[in-house]
């Protein structure tokens, strides 16, 4: 099954609805396990024809909700084209071309990877970035965001983008059309519009099966590895391509999520806030003892030298 069928769409829609109702997902980090029942997308660079319909659809659908605008190229005074050259404050997804030679080239679509253990969520100090436990969608809430851009620093894929030119800027990144297309049609705008079947939306489990099936069916066409299956602790956006993934802008990453390491360290130090409190009380004890000792000495000394002594001192 190349495309998720209607039944699956409805299931996902239901899941999405349920999660919207259940509210914010918990922030505490649990022992990390890949959840294959969450939803994501599979992008197949071999099937992609580079028509950019996904880019147009994404912008059309998410324009208002996502605070996007059309990009103007420098040479294009009249604003004839939407000149997206990279993911940016106006662009949630982009088709890029990697060309080594006339024979060896590949398109690639960049958008949020929807990590299983996202760094951006771990980084955000005010929970503006959240990962929905049920759907696995990494979402951004601009009403909470303070604009510190730590999510940008933290993301291994350089996905979150910032609106540098706006006075009321926000982070821009794919949310799997959670607030727009997914509610209405049960799928993402890009997957819906793709004429080549290069973008599939569905459960991670289904997508992985499909990806491996494609590799197995025509092993000569594909890299023998589904990017995102294990990278950075697993991502919900998966990739298939003919060329090595690092050449199409997908970094070589370990299977461990950065967020696990940093959270483990944070948790070890701050577990129940015991260590800081212990530190504080110990230091208090030492400091007060030192002070008392010092004043005793000083008092004796002062008695000899000065009579009136020490105002405001204790």
């Amino acid at each position, binding site marked *: 099954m190349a495309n998720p069928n209607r039944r699956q769409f409805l299931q996902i829609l239901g899941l999405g609805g349920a999660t919207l109702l259940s509210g914010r997902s918990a922030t505490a980090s649990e022992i990390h396990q890949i959840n294959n029942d969450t939803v994501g997308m599979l992008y197949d660079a071999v099937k992609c024809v580079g028509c950019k319909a996904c880019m147009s659809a994404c912008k059309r659908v998410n324009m208002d909700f996502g605070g996007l605008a059309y990009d103007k190229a420098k040479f294009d005074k009249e604003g004839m084209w939407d000149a997206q050259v990279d993911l940016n404050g106006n662009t949630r997804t982009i088709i890029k071309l990697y060309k080594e030679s006339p024979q060896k080239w590949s398109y690639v679509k960049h958008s949020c990877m929807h990590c299983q253990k996202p760094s951006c969520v771990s980084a955000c100090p005010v929970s503006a970035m959240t990962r929905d436990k049920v759907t696995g969608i990494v979402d951004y809430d601009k*009403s909470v965001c*303070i604009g510190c851009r730590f999510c940008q620093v933290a993301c*291994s894929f350089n996905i979150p983008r910032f609106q540098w030119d706006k006075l009321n*800027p926000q982070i821009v990144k794919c949310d799997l059309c959670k607030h727009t297309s997914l509610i209405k049609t049960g799928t993402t705008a890009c997957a819906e519009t793709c004429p080549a079947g290069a973008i599939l939306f569905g459960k991670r489990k289904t997508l992985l099966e499909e990806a491996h099936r494609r590799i197995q069916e025509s092993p000569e066409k594909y890299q023998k590895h589904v990017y995102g299956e294990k990278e950075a602790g697993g991502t919900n956006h998966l990739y298939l391509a003919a060329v090595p993934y690092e050449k199409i802008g997908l970094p070589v*990453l370990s299977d461990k999520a950065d967020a696990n390491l*940093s959270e483990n360290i944070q948790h070890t130090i701050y577990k129940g806030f015991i260590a800081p409190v212990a530190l504080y009380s110990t230091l*208090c004890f030492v400091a007060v003892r030192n002070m008392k000792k010092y004043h005793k000495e000083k008092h004796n000394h002062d008695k000899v030298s000065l009579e009136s002594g020490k105002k*405001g001192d204790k």
Partner: protein
Amino acid sequence: MPHSEYRRHKAPIITPSFLILLLLSLIGLALIALRFFKGLGYVSNLSDGYPWGIWITYDVATGTAIACGGYAMAIFIYICNNMHYHHMIRSAVLTSMFGYCLAGFSVMVDLGRPWNAYNFFVPSKWQANSAMFEVALCVMIYSTVLIIEILPSVLFILERDRWSDTRGILYSIQKMLSRQQKDAISKYAKMIRPKLDRILIFFVVLGITLPTMHQSSLGSLMLLSSSKLHPLWYTGFLPLLFLVNCIFIGFSIVVLESIISCYAFKRPYETKELSVVSAVIPWLTIIWFGVIFGDLAWRGQLGLIFNSGTNSFFFVLQNMLVATGSCMLFFKRNRGSLRRLFLAAMCLVAGGALYRFNVYLIGFDPGNGWSYFPSLSEFMVTVGLISIEILGYQLLVKTFPILPRLHHDGHPDDEIRSVI
């Protein structure tokens, strides 16, 4: 703390250096205003690849380390039981206060949506996994603690009948207030200060605990960037390295600040105190180097030191500077010489600061062709903030009793006399 240990530095406030600093501060503030009218991208060279530029790297990550003088001195005096040096703490706390308040201010400049910052105080939005959350909260609390620590010296002046004999800010304010108002202020100051003095030690200790927490968290921030930060610097020990780094920078800054302020204010040097304080530094750097190289060796990546191009250069430079400084301070003879103390402290601060630049900017590479160099306006904002810091320091030590009293003082000091 006995207030008799401190005195106001009596000197005219408006000097040539004051005017230059004022000019730089005003340029900085104007550019900050521009940032709020035109957006971040207009003023800075920040990009999606380098979302943090010199504002975060210098003003926050490095600036707070340089502002760790108060932290280092507090450890030295209260914890390591060197109470007889505690006349040195106020000026150290003052620089810390400026460093931290300005770090907080520059964060507000750097934030894209500062009006949402109230979410830090909304418990449902707290995100305990985030080192950033921890840093932000700690910096906010610590700034408050530092202000409380410096408050007694202000109250000390306010509780007196005449705030200032010479023309100045206090003199003008005093003129503006009516007799009753002034009496009321004096009354409250008299009421609060003894109580504050009694519990001040708990704030001082809080002022030791908080930097320990957030300085290490400043290192934890970069733990999330394993694929972007060069392996020379990316390690699980980043929090520890940042903590040790800030302590030795703190001590070095105390040395520098004491020498510079004595030089600038024409006061006698505190060579003996400084030589004792600086003796701690080499041991700290040994721990620091031990962790850095031990970790590299353990990872089997010692080779990176020499074959990482520009990164190698900065890594070696950072270590050379710190090593030079700490080697100098190993010898008692050098610690007795003001000039060598000063040079060593300079090397240590430069090397320690470079380490933070390395971690936040130089060793940070998001890939895909991104690069960063600050824009002129961006740089001038940072220069402006540094100017404000020095300006404020000058202003405060000339207004309130913050600098140590001159022990062998030949000159009659009316202010102190009146207390004693």
